[in-house]
């Protein structure tokens, strides 16, 4: 019975790293191919959720503790809003990415979009994993003996 989920465990170990690499690809190639912060965040969260489903909630909480998840939810919004505040301090409008490279506004827009999308990805990852932890960590309403 210990080896019961052997196939699932082997395939999951094979896939988790690949899913994370794919999430980073979607994150940082969002301006060249379909993707962006939201999709990358969900894919990144899927890597942790699939690990938690197959290996158990305790194992995934050792890798990705709940306090880090909760900090990530706020950190992403902070990165997004902070980008806008920094551009305001540089004398431009809120979230005017031209501020980051005054002589070459297109480059500044590239940088700004990259940072803002990174913030979106961090928040979405945190929210998805936090929802999974909240559902999976709930004590069962009916135990197995009650059936």
């Amino acid at each position: 019975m210990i080896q019961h989920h052997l196939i699932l465990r082997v395939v999951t170990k094979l896939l988790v790293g690949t899913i994370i690499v794919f999430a980073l690809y979607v994150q940082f190639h969002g301006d060249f191919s379909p993707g962006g912060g939201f999709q990358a965040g969900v894919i990144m969260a899927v890597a942790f959720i699939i690990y938690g489903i197959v290996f158990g909630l305790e194992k995934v909480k050792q890798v990705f503790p709940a306090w880090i998840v909760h900090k990530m939810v706020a950190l992403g919004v902070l990165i997004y809003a902070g980008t806008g505040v920094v551009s305001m301090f540089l004398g431009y409008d809120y979230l005017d990415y031209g501020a980051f490279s005054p002589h070459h506004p297109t480059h500044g827009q590239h940088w700004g979009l990259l940072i803002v999308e990174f913030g979106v990805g961090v928040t979405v990852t945190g929210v998805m994993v936090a929802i999974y932890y909240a559902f999976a960590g709930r004590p069962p309403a009916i135990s197995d003996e009650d059936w």
Partner: protein
Amino acid sequence: MTLYLLAIEILSWICIVGGGAFAIIGAIGSVRFPDFWSRLHAASVTDSAGMILLLLGMCLQAGLSLITVKLILIGVFLFITGPTSTHAVANAALVSGLKPRDGAPEDEK
């Protein structure tokens, strides 16, 4: 050269239409078959034959490019995850007490 391109085109469309036919057959089978195990079998036809033929046809359409590499990667991962998910579903059904029946169905004897 044009003959070569025509041959590639014909081959790729044979693959795509064949893959689509397998997918439709799999969908009909997973609705119309009588019990869980034969439905699972029908769904796995879509997974293997239909997926391989469709991706092969699209690879031939794309030629030698980055898209072909991405299609091959999609094929490799579907090749790993499809049978795994079928295994997980069948395993869960077997553990929860659904046994495959042998011989003729009882209600049609």
